[in-house]
């Protein structure tokens, strides 16, 4: 009896100790390196193991970087900025020193002080002056300071299925250039029957608002404008009404947008991958996703510039820096981002390595530089291109003539409201565009009132 009790007590004590020990360990801080002058930085953006080729190249790059920069060690992690875990990681001291963000994130992160000011360190960075100013602007705070660096870029256009174009008697090399032409093409594609949808669009989880914004830009309008230092909603306009009219007519008069709505990006990509969709609004970066996920061929898809000839929405991604990181770590992080992502000197080498392994080279993306630096990159991409660049000619030519616009401030909150506008027009035949726009504008004005 005594033995059993003693043993029980021992186990209980053990359990309690283990719990205490575990908790103590949880509170531990990662040690700052630097005994021998070597700085270790944590970075994310490493491709997952499910993408073995990309992963291998990333690891090779880390090794090459460490060899050429013996005082820097890279501790690479998978993943990107995930809004669901970001704040928890930051609060718990687990956020990487260099973290990946989408262009929609920096404004909010800067406002909340969740990114480090890197202004003092970037001035001496190689090729810094060649980076297009509009992309640096995304990472510039209201105080004029720089908080991050871009590494990828897209502008929205029209991704289309060339095979369906041919079947519908349309010329795949001359995709629609106006919304009226999109409407006509959608009619012909839908007429193929068998559940084929001419044009599809998003209306869920803020993606509807994102695309509505792009629609309004393409019609020559705006979502929000700054007047006398105050932001106001601007989509209750002719451009907004034209957008809703076109969507309504395609959905209800022509019945070319399919009956299932409340879609988001992966639903539409699935339709495209299944060969059941003619066109949708997207950047050229969607094509590799469709090709990889649904085992399609690059030859099947083309990209046209945003119809309307006015403007398009541009976005992208980049890297920001942990506000709690030391200056040494920030400097090392900038070295890494420049060497790995903003480096025209390595473009040819990387393209050569990747071109034979199914990594797409030559998509009209990531034109982050101006002048000579961009020309060098373009030449390397052209030399090692393994995708049908001719299919993207309508996009490249048309896009150059369009004004590139960025997303409105407080984009995500505004998109929640605009999701409702997209949903209403796509699910209600008798939706009233004027009422929808004026009600949404009132709500958006409220959201914009908090923007400084």
């Amino acid at each position, binding site marked *: 009896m005594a033995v059993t*009790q003693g043993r*029980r*007590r021992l186990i*209980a*004590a053990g*359990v*309690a100790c283990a*719990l*205490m020990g575990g*908790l103590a360990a949880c509170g531990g801080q990662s040690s700052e390196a630097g005994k021998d002058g070597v700085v270790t930085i944590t970075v994310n953006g490493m491709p997952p193991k499910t993408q073995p080729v990309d992963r291998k190249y990333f690891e090779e790059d880390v090794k090459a970087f460490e060899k050429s920069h013996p005082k820097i060690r890279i501790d690479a992690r998978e993943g990107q900025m995930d*809004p*669901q875990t*970001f*704040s928890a990681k*930051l*609060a718990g001291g687990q956020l990487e020193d260099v973290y990946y963000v989408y262009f929609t994130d920096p404004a*909010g992160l800067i406002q*909340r*002080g*969740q990114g480090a000011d890197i202004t003092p360190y970037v001035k001496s960075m190689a090729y810094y002056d060649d980076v297009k100013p509009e992309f640096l602007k995304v990472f510039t705070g209201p105080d004029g300071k720089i908080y991050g660096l871009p590494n990828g870029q897209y502008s929205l256009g029209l991704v289309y299925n060339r095979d369906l174009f041919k079947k519908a008697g349309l010329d795949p090399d001359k995709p629609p250039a106006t919304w009226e032409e999109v409407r006509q093409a959608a009619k012909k594609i839908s007429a193929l029957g068998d*559940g084929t949808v001419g044009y599809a669009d998003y*209306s*869920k*989880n*803020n993606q509807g608002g994102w695309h509505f914004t792009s629609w309004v830009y393409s019609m020559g309008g705006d979502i929000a404008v700054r007047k006398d230092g105050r932001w106001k909603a601007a989509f209750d306009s002719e451009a907004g009404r034209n957008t809703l009219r076109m969507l309504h007519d395609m959905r209800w008069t022509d019945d070319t947008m*399919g*009956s*299932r*709505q*409340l879609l*988001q990006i992966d639903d539409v990509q699935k339709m495209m991958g299944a060969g059941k969709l003619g066109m949708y609004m997207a950047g050229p970066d969607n094509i590799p996703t469709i090709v990889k996920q649904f085992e399609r061929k690059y030859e099947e898809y083309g990209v046209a510039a945003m119809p309307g000839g006015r403007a398009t929405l541009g976005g992208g991604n980049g890297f920001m820096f942990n*506000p*709690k990181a030391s200056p040494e770590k920030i400097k090392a992080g900038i070295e890494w981002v420049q060497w790995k992502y903003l480096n025209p000197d390595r473009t040819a080498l990387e393209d050569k390595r990747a071109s034979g392994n199914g990594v797409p080279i030559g998509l009209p993306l990531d034109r982050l530089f101006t002048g000579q630096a961009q020309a060098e990159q373009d030449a390397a991409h052209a030399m090692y291109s393994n995708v049908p660049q001719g299919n993207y000619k309508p996009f490249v030519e048309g896009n150059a003539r369009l004004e590139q616009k960025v997303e409105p401030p407080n984009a*995500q*909150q505004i998109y*929640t409201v605009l*999701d*409702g506008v997209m*949903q*209403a027009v*796509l*699910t*209600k035949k008798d939706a009233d565009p004027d009422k929808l726009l004026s009600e949404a504008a009132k*709500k958006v004005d409220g959201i914009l009132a908090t923007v400084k």
Partner: protein
Amino acid sequence: MAAPTLTRTPTSSAEPRTAGGGDQRRRRCRIRENLTAYAFLGAGLLCFAVFSWSPIVRGLLLGFQQVSFAQPATWVGWENYRRLFDDPLFLTAWKNTGYFTLLALVFGFAAPFVTAVVLNEFRHARAYLRMTVYLPVMLPPIVTMLLWRWFYDPGPGLFNNVLKLLHLPGQQWLESENLAMLSLVLVSTWANMGTTTLIYLAALGSIPGELYEAAELDGASIRRRLWHVTIPQLRFILMITLLLQIIGTMQVFIEPYVMTGGGPDDATVTVLLLLYRYAFVYNDFGLASAMSTVLFLVLGLFAGIYLRLTRGKG
């Protein structure tokens, strides 16, 4: 006779002392005996404090702060609550959640009960039928949602094709403001009724057979037996599942998030979906915490009723 009295006197005068010493010793002994229990209790309480109570307290505090996690939080008083009550979606979300809960009670409460009563009548293939009813619970929720999105697809979807076979008009299951919430409730009921059905089946099994025999001898019909024997016998368990169902359905999130994103026209925005948006789309943890405090209070009310009901019956 006297001797015992005499001997008793000193003993009795000494009794408190001896008894006191014995009590102390016994108490000490009891503490020592229970040391193991205290150790486990301490570890358990510590676990609750760290993983359960401290996040709750922190959540309550966050509701009065503006937080960025990079800089120290600033106190903003009732500001988050003011903004919360100003948000027109706040009321919509509560109305929608209330509507979902109500519908879930009509379907989710009745369906498992009826299924359990019917299943209980089967003499053959019992195990098989029980497993079939329980099967949806084992599917990961995301799989269930995607499966039902296909059922609901107004084009090639299962439901509209069945309606077509019956020469009935197809429905916009998720795309219509009137039907969207009902469609979500149906998925939720299908996905979760297995567990409740099993609870009812277990409870039905514990009803003494003699009650039914007596009722049968008195010539009671099936309906009367159900009304006068089954339901009164299951009253307590029905009350508990009702409360659990209310607490569970008020936290509905994954159905609207995956299937409708809150649409069409905010018809399926629920409290938790709005809370999720505040926290993870707008990164406004103060506002989200204020919202979760409100939800906590409402759920706490039901949890209180639950605790009160179960206290005596434990």
